[in-house]
């Protein structure tokens, strides 16, 4: 039981981490986030379902198409919900993304349908036995894919030109502009990447769970907790916090029952932030007078 729980804890945790990396990436370049990140995840799962199951597209077409559309969704979020406010120095982007999340969830309800659907995948039906627990291939894959994407993000940021440009905008936006980098465009790209991460998480988690219009709400909240807990400006911190959150959740479920997971996990978030105001893995920023 412990093995199974730990695996599913790691799996869920890495999905929280993936969503949270979406918060991270937009935050570092623009100090803004899409608060409705959960809705982006839902959009990913719903589109993936529609293309792959409903319309029967082959997977090599359905997945790239979903990711592309989600990237466009991310660009739209930035262009219409974030930039109009952040460029005026207003914090109302926060409210705007929340409101848009409700809007998108409801739109999905009327187009996709009101009942949860099963995203069947061969990967969930094939199982392996590990230390006495029966675990589906997908469940083994999810943490691996999650870690691989986080690693890929790390490598892209460290070794590619795009990564360097992104890094430049994060570390010193003004100097980046002086290099001729269009910081606005980089921010937009960050939002697209953020939505793509959410979509990947949505498509991975859907087969274990189900696809429905409101599947993202709680996920989004937990992912935000993960992002904050990890110290939102540290990518590796966010990823570790995601795994930690998933594991704590799994262990609390085992020992106290799932009714108590949210009390425990969110209680721990308050405690952790009280003790480490910049997150578990965040670094202190110096106040300049």
């Amino acid at each position, binding site marked *: 039981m412990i093995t*199974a729980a730990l695996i599913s804890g790691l799996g869920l945790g890495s999905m929280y981490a993936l969503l949270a990396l979406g918060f991270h990436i937009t935050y570092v370049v623009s100090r803004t986030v899409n608060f409705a990140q959960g809705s982006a995840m839902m959009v990913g799962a719903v589109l993936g379902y529609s293309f792959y199951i409903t319309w029967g597209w082959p997977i090599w077409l359905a997945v790239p198409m979903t990711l592309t559309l989600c990237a466009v969704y991310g660009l739209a979020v930035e262009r219409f919900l974030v930039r109009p406010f952040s460029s005026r120095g207003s914090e109302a982007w926060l409210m705007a993304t929340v409101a848009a999340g409700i809007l998108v969830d409801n739109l999905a*309800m009327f187009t996709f349908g009101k*009942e*949860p659907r*099963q995203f069947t995948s061969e990967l969930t039906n094939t199982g392996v036995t590990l230390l006495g627990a029966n675990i589906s291939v997908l469940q083994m894959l999810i943490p691996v894919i999650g870690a691989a994407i986080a690693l890929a993000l790390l490598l892209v940021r460290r070794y590619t030109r795009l990564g360097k440009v992104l890094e430049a905008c994060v570390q010193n936006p003004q100097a980046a502009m002086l290099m001729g980098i269009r910081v606005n465009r980089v921010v937009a790209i960050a939002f697209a990447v953020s939505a793509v991460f959410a979509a990947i998480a949505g498509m991975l*988690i859907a087969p274990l769970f189900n696809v*429905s219009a*409101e599947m993202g709400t709680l996920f989004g909240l937990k992912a935000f907790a993960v992002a904050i807990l990890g110290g939102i400006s540290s990518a590796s911190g966010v990823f570790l916090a995601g795994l930690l959150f998933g594991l704590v959740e799994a262990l609390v479920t085992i020992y106290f*029952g799932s009714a108590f997971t949210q009390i425990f996990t969110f209680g721990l978030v308050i405690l952790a932030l009280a003790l480490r105001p910049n997150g578990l893995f965040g670094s202190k920023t110096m106040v300049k007078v």
Partner: protein
Amino acid sequence: MFKLLKPLRRRWPQAAAVTALSLLVLSPAQAAEAIKVGLVAALSGQSAKSGEALTRGLTIAIDEINAAGGILGQPVELIRRDDESNPAKGMLAARELIQREEVTVLFGGLDTPVSLAIVPLANQMKVPFMGIWAAGTGITHNGAEDNYVFRVSAMDEIVDEALVQYGIDEYNMQKPGMLLINNPWGESNEKGFRHALETRDMPYAGIERIESSDLDVIPQLTRLKNAGADTLLMVGNVGPSAQVVKSLDRMEWDVPVVSHWGPAGGRFSELAGPNASRVHFIQTYVFTEHNSAKGDQVLSALKSTYPEIETLADITPAVGIANAYDGMHLAALAIEQAGNTEGPAVRDGFYAIDEYQGLIKDYKQPFTTEQHDALGPQDYIFTHFVDGSIVPVKP
């Protein structure tokens, strides 16, 4: 000044036009003498599908009634309000329907807490409130001297009794384990199960809670298994119920599952996979390939009114439709009996209904001053999923 919100609502159609939300379907203004009936239910969010079923059942019945000349010669009009599963919103909406729209009968809700919030209001305002889904015992057994609350649906206490008896009869259940959704519905059934088991002096392996957000329920199931559970009693919506089946598969634990009607609320067989049929669950009504004449009539009306319904699998949840359908017809008969739309008269009209050949059963004197629930244990049927459709376990 007296009707603070009236002007706003009046202006609403223009506003809708302005916002270009042409998909918005507003019922066209009816003749002034229409008899209005209200529905307060969750029409958005997680329970939206069930709310839609209630709407469909009521609409089919109203269409039939209007086609037959209405009630007391007047057409019937349905007015719906979304309660977002929030008792505060539900209570507000009920008040609005009663006072503003002056509905003759109020139909209600999916969530027991929302109905519980409306009950005192209905009794105080003397407007009949017909429960067509929420199964909380306290809704009809509300202790009011002047009780205006009726129900054409299951009642948790009786369902729990029936589930326990089914386990004993079919599976020789000795030590059940309970899996309950962590919400008011689950809580209410916990009480019912405990009572049913106590009267039989039967021990239980444990009570475990499940959440819609649980990715798997293996920890809960393992605890029940280790405690020696020989049968599972399950109360949960379609999503978590499916997770239970999938987790059982992965644990390779072959244990009978007896369930409340949760699995009927959606595409359970799709969600739960090949072993969906292992769950036997209770229903008040199912549409099958071979229905009664009434059943076929409603089914074809559904298909023609809602083109998106193509197969039996698209009719979910059937209980919602059936309860709402029969509830509406019973209410119509009550108003006919009363001869007017005054609340107390209509309430007495319900008592005066002699016989009604309904979808679920033939009702004979369905309501008395002592009995506000039209359905009883003898009306429940046990069903399971076969090839995506709900079929009775014993035809």
